[in-house]
């Protein structure tokens, strides 16, 4: 089960994660990113999408651990 965490102290709301993995991340209007997926339901496809978003996050605020 991957663990997907957004470091809210680093997140600046650039929103690339939502563009890459809209099933995993939602950028709310007030600028905060929410992780939509619960650990218990996250599969390989979700982990791959979350990892792609983590690599694209310009401020390295997303952490995905298997």
């Amino acid at each position, binding site marked *: 089960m991957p663990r997907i965490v957004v470091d809210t*102290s*680093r997140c*600046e*709301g*650039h*929103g*690339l994660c939502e563009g*890459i993995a809209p099933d995993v991340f939602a950028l709310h*209007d*007030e*600028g905060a990113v929410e992780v939509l997926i619960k650990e218990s339901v996250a599969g390989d496809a979700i982990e791959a999408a979350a990892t*792609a978003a983590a*690599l*694209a996050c*310009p*401020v*390295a605020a997303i952490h995905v651990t298997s």
Partner: protein
Amino acid sequence: MTQTLPSTDIDLFADEVIADPHPTYRELRDAGSALWMSRYDCWLLPRYAEVFAALRDHDRFSSASGVGLNDVMNQATKGGSVLCTDPPEHDHLRRILGSRLTPRALRGHSEDFLRRAHLLVDELIEKGSFDAVADFSSAFPLSVVPDLLGVPEDGREHLLKWASAAFQAEGPMNERTQSSLPDLQEFLGYITDVAGEQKLASGSWGHQMLLEARAGEIDEKMLPPLLLDYLGPSIDTTISALSTAIWQFALHPDQWDALRSDRTLIANVVNEAVRLEAPIRGFGRHLTHDFDADGVTLAAGDWVFVSYASANRDERRWENPGRFDIHRDTAGHVGFGSGIHSCVGQGLAKLEATALFTALADKVTRFELTGEPVWNVHNILRGIATLPVTVRV
């Protein structure tokens, strides 16, 4: 050291390399994952994989000893700005700067930017032929951030020279660096003057920070570096990205047609422009622990030049890297750096560009080059100096 060091005596800062850098970057990428630059006693990371890894590994690749390639600047700047600190000092300054620059915080400016963009574009269409760098690309960067910061008009005429000098001085101690130091001194004097004597316009970002400093929320001695962090990196870099885009749209009218028929592509223009021609060639880092660069060990204590410009053209990472393609998936490019030190103003740069290219797309059908672009010769910055164009409507 027992390993034979892969090294190069290529001078990354020679005039001819700066004028036409991409063949040299390619040669360096092909020579190895890490190369000891014998002329400068520091490592070069020319490939994408190691550059990205380095930028994401900010504890090992420290910025707190400075990010330049000469001791004078590194001694003067270390620990004193968001660029030259590690966490936790970095994070505190980044939050102050970043809070005003998040896409959400900037949203309210988009209408005003678009209005200003239309005025500028109408003026340029009236002219017909102009220098895209001076007349188009420079207009927003020389007014937007100075206005937001609230710095006085008096002195702004020197901003181009000063901001360029602040980057120039981060190079190796060559003639360019030396000749930039007096200009940098002037810039620092101006900033200190502006920060100290209530010259900041009421209600501006600068004035807000002044009040926060008076209230003890910001260390008062950090006010000049914070003003510098907002102002210095916002000018040449944005001008470079906008000019690269115009140049490429003139060379590839199919790309301009594509943008005009699908405005959602505008959001990717700046990304692809700074991927193709990274406005910042690279920055230095100081290793706190050994680093394995695909079999080459870089030792703790060594200095490393991390080449954003070369990484963004790495054939190992990008398909047809020399081609400007606004459809490209640019995610992961390092034209803004990457990780905790990535460009804090990227949201603002994108907002400026979106307004400008929207206004252009409404009216301009073609950009035609009426001469060759002339490039700046600069240690750290890559950007076109003059770009004569004619626009068709």
